[in-house]
């Protein structure tokens, strides 16, 4: 068993639309150790969600993972059959989504939806599953769990529903939990509770978390290791302290600058000029070149590769790698 729980090598997931091929995920590499939290940061449209869906093999038409390998506990998920994937989903890898309001089936009781996973993967009987469901609800901090188990989703608040999602995801004690912007739709106070809950559960159940977010604050608080994605590629990969102290890729620097900090009295926030390029008309060289203040000639013509500039800190940018050397 390699020491990495999840080892993603050069994964490419493209969408074959009738207007052209959109390279949503264009050669992504990263690794997650057991019990570790990996943060995936990037603007919307950078391929974060598609990466997570590729891991789960739930990419919808017309998308398809055409290259690379996703080694989970040493086995490549891309070679698995649909049935094998179905035994993994919800059992060994489970997922929670951004929109708690619409992610639960409105016509089934909340308890039923949790019990379903337990009965499917742990083949428990109905009452065993019900008790476990109640237990899970208690774990995720839902008061009066015995009553809530028989409630319908529309009877719960957004925060409560996200807790139910987490209960459902962790019911089978998966080794990896993929959280696709879990707190974006919640207000700040609830957000903090959910994040704190996820950390407790991580420690208690030893579940690795792949946390996808565009919020650097969340990453700082939760992640052990971070990768920054831009236009379907990983542009920087570093442990969290290293990244915050020493952001090397111009895009990461731009992101860092745009975080509002309490002690800074500047009224206008810095933002990165320009827009994310149209997926069908990507520049030839480095994708960030059109918006990069430090761009040099080479950036226009060649595509940078991820190179290690410090222990565990890689960056794919010519300027950044030269400077260090």
């Amino acid at each position, binding site marked *: 068993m390699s020491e990495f729980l999840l080892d993603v090598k050069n994964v490419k997931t493209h969408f074959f639309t009738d207007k052209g091929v959109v390279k949503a995920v264009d050669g992504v590499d990263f690794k997650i150790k057991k019990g570790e939290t990996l943060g995936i940061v990037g603007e919307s449209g950078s391929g974060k969600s598609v990466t997570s869906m590729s891991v789960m093999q739930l990419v919808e038409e017309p998308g398809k993972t055409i290259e690379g390998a996703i080694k989970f506990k040493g086995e490549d998920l891309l070679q698995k059959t649909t049935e094998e994937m179905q035994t*993994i989903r919800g059992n060994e890898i489970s997922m929670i989504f951004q929109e708690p309001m619409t*992610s639960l089936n409105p016509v089934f009781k909340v308890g039923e939806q949790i019990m379903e996973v337990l009965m499917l993967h742990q083949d428990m009987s109905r009452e065993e599953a019900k008790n476990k469901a109640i237990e899970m609800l208690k774990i995720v901090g839902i008061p009066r769990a015995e009553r809530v188990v028989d409630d319908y989703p529309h009877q719960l608040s957004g925060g409560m529903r996200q807790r139910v999602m987490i209960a*459902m995801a962790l019911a089978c004690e998966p080794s990896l939990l993929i959280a696709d912007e879990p707190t974006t739709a919640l207000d700040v106070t609830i957000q903090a509770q959910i994040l704190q809950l996820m950390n407790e559960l991580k420690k208690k159940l030893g579940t690795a978390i792949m946390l996808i977010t565009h919020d650097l604050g969340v990453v700082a608080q939760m992640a052990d290791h971070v990768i920054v994605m831009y236009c379907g590629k990983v542009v920087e990969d570093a442990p969290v302290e290293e990244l915050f102290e020493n952001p090397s890729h111009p895009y990461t620097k731009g992101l860092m600058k745009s975080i509002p900090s309490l002690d800074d009295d500047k009224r206008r926030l810095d933002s990165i000029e320009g827009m994310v390029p149209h997926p069908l008309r990507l520049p030839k060289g480095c994708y960030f070149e059109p918006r990069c203040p430090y761009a040099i000639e080479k950036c226009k013509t060649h595509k940078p590769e991820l190179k290690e500039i410090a222990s565990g800190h890689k960056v794919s940018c010519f300027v950044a790698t030269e400077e260090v050397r």
Partner: protein
Amino acid sequence: MLKYILRRLLQMIPVILIISMLLFILVQAMPGDPIQAYLGVNSKVNPEVKERIKAKLGLDKPIHIQYIMWLKRMLTGDFGESIEYKRPVSEVISQFIWNTFLLNIVVFILAFGISIPVGIICAVKKYSRTDNFWTVFSLIGISMPSFFFGLLLIFGFAVNLKIFPISGMITAGSRYTGLAYALDVAKHMVLPTIVLTIGSLASLVRYVRNSMLEVIKQDYIRTARSKGLSEKVVIYRHAFRNALIPIVTLIGIWIPTLFTGAIITERVFVWPGIGRVLYHGVIMRDYNIVMTLNMFFAILMLMGNLLQDIGYALVDPRVKVE
């Protein structure tokens, strides 16, 4: 829930009364009087004698008095006598209504039995060959007048291929009983059932397909898949349970059709159903038959609507039953 049902039933009473009033006025407003219709042309009956018969049936009284007399009789369960058949309306109706019910219950089961799976498949495999096929096929059903479609089937299967009988519900002169009788009726039912079922497929398949398409896009379907459920379970349990909501309204609409009978289809296949009785009742201005049948269908329709709303509450927990 029981309180709600009771309240809705109470609410129906004024509605039924209003319907009966409007219906009575409409039926009376139909030009042509039943006595003249019954006596027909060149009956050589003296006009004063005609007046005497009208007086006997109370047709000469002003409309509101006739209505009150009719209402009193209805409340005591006496539906009056048919001018055409000269027998109590209840007796005439009971002879024919069950034939209509028999035909329509089979059509109901077939129509929903086919359209639900087909609708789901067409939704899941959108724009596939099967989806296109069923879209066009089900449109054939509603773009052909039923008598035209009926006759085509008769000339095709009954006259040329001689597989099915041409008309009627049982073979004339046959002394079948028990199973043989049932088989004989079944043989006679095939063609009318095809006409009525295909006729209704178009709307059912489309409604099921569209409600499924709406549901399949929802987030909770993605969640279901992420829980490792098989595609079958995701579609038939999670998706279909939500698509059931608009389908329940269709069942409500269908309840009355179980009894109203298709006037034209019953006529083309000489199926002794209630449709033909109603048609003749209207043509011959047989007031009691027309009033009783239409009141029965109106009440059925109201029940159907109630069933719909209850169905909603059962199927969709979000709808509170105030």
